[in-house]
């Protein structure tokens, strides 16, 4: 059954491989996926280790429901200490790898040490081998997978791998499977590169037993109907996440020219342009939303290239942030980052920051080797992507990520960089939206929109509906506000979304099926049902909240162990000092208020049971059973 999958510990240095069952007790405490990952990282890592050294540990995890009859149960979670931020590294990906890992008999991999030379793991039906990968080193993402299919003589093998960016230890290199599915954030690809681990290949034919097959089928059918009937899913099926651009750009919620504007005027990168290039759409495992386009680049040096995506994120990375207004640049940029294995978000943000520094004269033609890093210079932007992946010239500096690059560039360069805890923001502008701002400030993995963003706050939903969502499953009777520019009750929204996303990342279901961008999707109640029908484990919605709370707090403890404090839950000064210059009247002229933001942060800590420094109180640790961590049970 779904609960009999194992954990494997692989030491690349000694080549020792050990497997162990995962006790049901651990499932009840952490489910799996991201939740159990937090436990593994907290237990297997020491504080202050070098993230790109052999002491770091890489975890690869399937969620508790990955591969089961829970709609879009496609997800794989990757963790390590992040070489980008120095705090918890944690990244979640779709595709087909996670289910295949389970078919091969495993739920969690803990990879330690550094291989003597390039290596890859070959995992099949309960067996794990370490194989040499000299012939794969230097290959890009698609070619690596192709070579492994040929070598293993099985095109059904699912491969998770790094590209040249990971090999070159670019601190925001990602881990990929397929052409587009990426564990993008926090530099997990660099950790693989530092271990000489080029890829993990899996193939399995083992049954994943469903506890109550008939009921699971029936329930999944109902959920699919519910999900498919939402306007959100129907829009995603047509345009993917790029549809978001229309609303956020019109309103003025998009970072443009790094952080100078909050709207791209005369924008020419709307989602509808994909129609000229798309040859269809594709879905991850078991998903009816199929939010990615399959596209062909038409002109220029990449004419005829097949690629998949792009996401909203790439519209920012190769559009608004860098001042480019050409849809094809987004398509090419997206293709390049996916070929090299770079996080599209961090890549675009780093280039945008460099462009502002170039404009201000902090970077000069000497630093850029003559490359004119001017807003809207599409060719320069695409060239910088390659230079970052190959660590050439300025690319070598930017490859170090915000904090280290700012140190090398010097002057007051850091104050222009839009980052939290050393990780760049999405191209969203949160100056008019306190809830979204609090989310990126407090996210355990550094600035991020996928850890706690209450995106539905932007919809002006009526208060009774907000109460229905945010009032449970753990009771909350404090205030809630439909006004997204307000600070009232936003701490609760952020906390609620944190718990929701932690739970969903631990089950291996995609966030797009939960209350993220639509209020009509699944939440704690439905998760409880899905877990029961598929695994037989019984939880109340409140208990799932507690599990998420436990895992989230453990991520927090990880960061505290690395010396992070309340000061790290804060945004750069520009958020408080530079009002938004454009946008609809409701967002124009807005910046965050330090006093109110501080109050909101206090409120947020209080909701979590953390003290004013953001440290979990002893009674909180006791309530969550974390007072004995690390407990070394796995």
């Amino acid at each position, binding site marked *: 059954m779904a609960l009999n999958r194992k954990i494997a510990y692989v030491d690349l240095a000694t080549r020792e491989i050990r497997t162990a069952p995962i006790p049901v007790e651990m499932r009840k405490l952490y489910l799996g996926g991201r939740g159990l990952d937090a436990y593994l990282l907290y237990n297997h890592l020491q504080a202050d280790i070098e993230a790109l050294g052999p002491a770091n540990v890489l975890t690869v995890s399937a969620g508790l429901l990955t*591969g*089961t*009859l829970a709609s879009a149960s496609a997800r794989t979670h990757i963790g390590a200490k992040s070489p980008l931020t120095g705090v918890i590294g944690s990244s979640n990906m779709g595709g*087909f790898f996670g*289910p295949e890992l389970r*078919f091969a008999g495993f739920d969690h991999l803990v990879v330690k040490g550094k291989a003597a030379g390039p290596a890859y793991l070959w995992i099949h039906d309960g067996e794990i081998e370490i194989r040499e990968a000299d012939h794969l080193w230097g290959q890009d993402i*698609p070619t690596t*997978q*192709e070579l492994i299919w040929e070598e293993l003589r099985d*095109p059904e093998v699912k491969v998770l791998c790094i590209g040249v960016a990971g090999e070159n230890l670019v601190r925001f290199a990602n881990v990929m499977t*397929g*052409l587009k599915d990426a564990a993008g954030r926090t530099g997990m690809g660099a950790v693989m590169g530092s271990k000489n681990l080029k890829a993990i290949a899996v193939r399995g*034919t*083992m*049954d*994943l*037993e*469903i506890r109550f*097959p008939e009921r*699971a*089928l029936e329930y*999944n*059918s109902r959920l*699919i109907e519910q999900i*498919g009937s939402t306007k959100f899913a129907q829009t995603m099926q047509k345009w993917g996440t790029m549809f978001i651009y229309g609303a956020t750009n019109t309103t003025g919620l998009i970072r443009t020219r790094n952080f100078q504007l909050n709207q791209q005027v005369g924008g020419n990168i709307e989602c509808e342009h994909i129609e000229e290039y798309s*040859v*269809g*759409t*594709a*879905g*991850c*495992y*078991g*998903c*009816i939303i*199929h939010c990615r386009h*399959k596209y062909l680049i038409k002109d220029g040096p990449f004419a005829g290239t*097949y690629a*998949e995506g792009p996401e909203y994120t790439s519209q920012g990375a190769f559009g608004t942030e860098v001042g480019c207004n050409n849809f094809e640049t987004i398509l090419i940029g997206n293709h390049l980052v996916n070929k090299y294995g770079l996080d599209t978000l961090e890549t675009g943000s780093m280039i945008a920051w460099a462009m502002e520094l170039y404009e201000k004269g902090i970077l000069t033609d000497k630093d850029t080797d003559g490359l004119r890093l001017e807003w809207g210079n599409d060719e320069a932007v695409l060239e910088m992507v390659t230079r970052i992946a190959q660590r050439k010239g300025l690319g070598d500096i930017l490859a170090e990520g915000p904090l280290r690059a700012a140190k090398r560039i010097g002057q007051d360069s850091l104050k222009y960089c839009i980052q939290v805890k050393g990780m760049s923001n999405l191209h969203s502008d949160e100056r008019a939206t306190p809830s979204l701002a609090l989310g990126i400030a407090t996210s355990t993995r550094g600035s991020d929109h996928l850890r706690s963003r209450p995106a539905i706050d932007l919809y002006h939903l009526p208060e009774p509906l907000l109460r229905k969502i945010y009032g449970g499953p753990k009771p909350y009777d404090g205030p809630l506000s439909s006004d997204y520019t307000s600070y009232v009750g936003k701490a609760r929204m952020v906390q609620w979304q944190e718990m929701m996303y932690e739970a969903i990342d631990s089950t291996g279901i995609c966030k797009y099926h939960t209350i993220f961008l639509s209020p009509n999707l699944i939440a704690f109640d439905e998760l409880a049902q899905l877990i029961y029908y598929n695994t037989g484990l019984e939880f109340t919605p409140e208990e799932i909240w507690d599990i998420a709370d436990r895992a989230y707090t453990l991520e927090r403890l990880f960061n505290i162990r690395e010396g992070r404090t309340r000061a790290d839950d804060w945004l750069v000064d520009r958020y408080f000092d530079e009002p938004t210059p454009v946008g609809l009247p409701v967002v124009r002229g807005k910046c965050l208020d330090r006093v109110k933001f501080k109050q909101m942060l206090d409120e947020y800590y209080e909701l979590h049971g953390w003290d004013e420094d953001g440290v979990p109180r002893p009674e909180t640790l006791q309530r969550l059973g974390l007072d004995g961590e690390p407990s070394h049970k796995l």
Partner: protein
Amino acid sequence: MEMILAVDHAKCTGCRLCEQVCSVKHTGANSPSRSRIHIIKWPLEGFELPMLCQQCEEAPCIAVCPKDALSRDTMLGRVALDYDLCIGCKMCVMACPFGGMGIDSESRQVIKCDLCDGDPTCVRFCDPGALQFVPASSVNLRKKRDAGLRLSEVMRRSFATRR
């Protein structure tokens, strides 16, 4: 009225939900290798094709079966498999040109699509409509309508410009 499980590969998004529900329906477990349907993919080119038993009229599997375990079920429009007669010789697996006959790794029996006795689970779950269960008589008419729609768009455009 004979029904046919019609595949429109252009609508397939490659999500493999059909494989998942097929195997759970027939075995109680999710196990793609035990599914009766498979999505064959060329992931680097973005092409996917659902493959399953074609329920042939002149079925090679029926022809080679030494025990008459396979037969034409005209009522449900399928090639039916009688496990009481089957000796597991796997000649049918060898004879099928499409890979429609498989072997269940657990039971060691040959397996094939049985159209879920007239209500195919895969069709029920295929949200994009790549799999459809339709009257045999209307299969080509439906295709004509789809093709006609694309053609009509071109024709209407050229008609509009001429006017």
